[in-house]
């Protein structure tokens, strides 16, 4: 990889990490439980992006598997928590 591309990928990783800070602000302020659940969903999406960029930086295919597993668990967890919030009970 050339220097420009390497710098661009590292800067992308840094920007993705910094983008989580406004999400944490909304997590702190957010008036209801649904707001916080939405922020957690967004943070998980950013984490998937961070892991994929890390896979490109390290040149390791295994990181993408971790990202797939994280996406699957985030989907199930978000659905379960949304049902818990809307009906005030788990099952």
């Amino acid at each position, binding site marked *: 990889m050339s220097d420009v591309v390497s710098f661009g990928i590292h800067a992308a990783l840094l920007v993705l990490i910094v983008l989580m800070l406004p999400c944490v602000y909304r997590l702190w302020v957010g008036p209801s439980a649904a707001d916080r659940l939405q922020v957690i969903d967004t943070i998980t999406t950013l984490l998937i992006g961070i892991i994929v*960029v890390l896979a490109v930086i390290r*040149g390791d295919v295994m990181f*993408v598997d971790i990202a797939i597993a994280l996406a699957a668990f985030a989907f199930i967890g978000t659905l379960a928590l949304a049902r818990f919030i809307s009906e005030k009970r788990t099952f």
Partner: protein
Amino acid sequence: MEIIGLVALWIGIGFCAIGILGLVRLPDIYTRLHASGKVSTVGLCSLLLGAAILMPSTTLKVIALALFALLTLPVSTHAIALAGYRSGIRMRGFSRDDMAIGFRVVESIETIEMKEEASAA
């Protein structure tokens, strides 16, 4: 070719940044969900496209991840919106609630069915 991948990666990051700006600035949960839906579909998929171009050995796995994200993340967005509605959040600035009519119909049908079951038992 690597420059194209880098451009796609940064387009994805730009969409993520705009979506998160909306997540911080917009007034109520439904508009914020509209903003964060952009992060989860357009932003993530463009970022994954850039990663697939930059690292050709992972292309199949990254495409699988993008398809999975396109299938599941809008579903979780809708689930969060329905959870917010059912927990009593109303949209700011609107006086009419069209969805409540549908909910009332569904609830009355359910109560009628419950009464029929109780009378049959």
